[in-house]
């Protein structure tokens, strides 16, 4: 019997592959990166087997390359994500995401009495811990930790 090695998601010629996304957060990553408003071809999948994460998600975007500060925005939902930059079907660069010092938008403040949960305000946080992410609200000063993290 012949062994078949098959790619679950087809290869791209030029663009970015984002791998090792926690399975349930693929749609959040698409949203944070604004990929729901991109005209280029995007293939993505989730619940692939992964030794590291159990189940993982994967996104391939043709002809889109991200700046570091853009890609770091997904650190909150995909801290272990790996990026492969593809040119002419070859991986030319690999990147990992890094939790930034400040988070603008993206997350919601855990404090129900915070003004940001009552008016249309872009949330702002200072990252006080990067390992188990913990965010300090610029407005009310309360800490939102990983457990209570809600992506807006």
């Amino acid at each position, binding site marked *: 019997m012949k062994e078949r090695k098959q790619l679950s998601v087809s290869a791209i010629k030029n663009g970015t592959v984002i791998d090792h996304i926690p399975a349930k957060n693929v749609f959040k990553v698409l949203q944070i990166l604004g990929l729901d408003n991109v005209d280029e071809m995007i293939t993505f999948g989730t619940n692939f087997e992964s030794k590291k994460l159990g189940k993982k998600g994967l996104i391939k975007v043709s002809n889109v390359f991200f700046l570091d500060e853009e890609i770091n925005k997904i650190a909150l939902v995909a801290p272990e994500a790996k990026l492969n930059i593809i040119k002419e079907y070859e991986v030319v660069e690999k990147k990992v995401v890094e939790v930034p010092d400040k988070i603008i938008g993206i997350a919601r*403040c855990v*404090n129900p*009495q*915070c*003004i*940001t949960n*009552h*008016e*249309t*305000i872009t949330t702002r946080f200072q990252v006080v811990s990067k390992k188990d992410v913990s965010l300090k*609200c*610029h*407005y*009310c*000063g*309360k800490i939102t930790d990983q457990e209570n993290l809600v992506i807006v």
Partner: protein
Amino acid sequence: MKNRSLVSIDDYSKDEIIKILDLAEEFEKSPAPNLLEGKVIATLFFEPSTRTRLSFESAVNRFGGRIVGFTDSSTSSVTKGETLKDTIKTVSNYSDLIVIRHPLEGSARYASEVASVPVVNAGDGANQHPTQTLLDLYSIRKTQGTLDNLNIFLVGDLKYGRTVHSLLMAMSHFNTTFNFISPEELRMPDEYKIFLDNLGLKYYEHLDFTDIISRADIVYMTRVQKERFSDPMEYEKVKNVYVLRKKMLKNTKDNMRILHPLPRVNEIHDEVDSSEKAYYFPQALNGVYTRQAIIASILGLT
């Protein structure tokens, strides 16, 4: 400090805090009745706080300034559904400085970002109340002659009390020794203890203060509210422990003074009022000088 909003006590450095206190002292000695002539101060009280509002309005009136505003949100366009942003942007047109009191946390910071004039936070929910802190510091310095190396007792609800948290942050500039006296359920949160640890400042925690009050330079009393307890029995057990009575003052230092942000309910017994160590009413008067100093310094009128 000119044109800069005051939202949180850590918006001011140690030097800036001292500048405000010096200025307040100046206004106490020699009032400047026309300093705010031609100026309009807005006092926007989205929730009632009679004491704070009157203190601000007294400060402005004694300077000859004018006041516009509202005393609670039911009499403003908030009831029509106006956003805070729109209210602040509108009132920016009518005034030289906005004083805001709002039940939501972070509201004053947000207001300072959308306003075209400086904003002073007169309390945003359980978050910050920096003018209270500055008047507390003024009262401490005035009664002790210094802010340095004092032993400060914080008594009562140390978990939820924003005044004690801000006071702790501000006093941390002055090599203070802290004694925290509270019921188990209302202890000082860890984040503040870590903050003091990092600065190498000393603090001690107690459940009772009858035996140690003789060491205090300042006893800062706060209310222990029944609704803060998950178990009402717990409240009944401790409620009398955090009441200050005259007989407890017997062996206290001569320079010791009792402060309270007011309103008081029963945590300082009436009989204490006649003691020369009771300072909570003069403390309220100091609020007027301190708020004058804050307004004058932000408007650059010094």
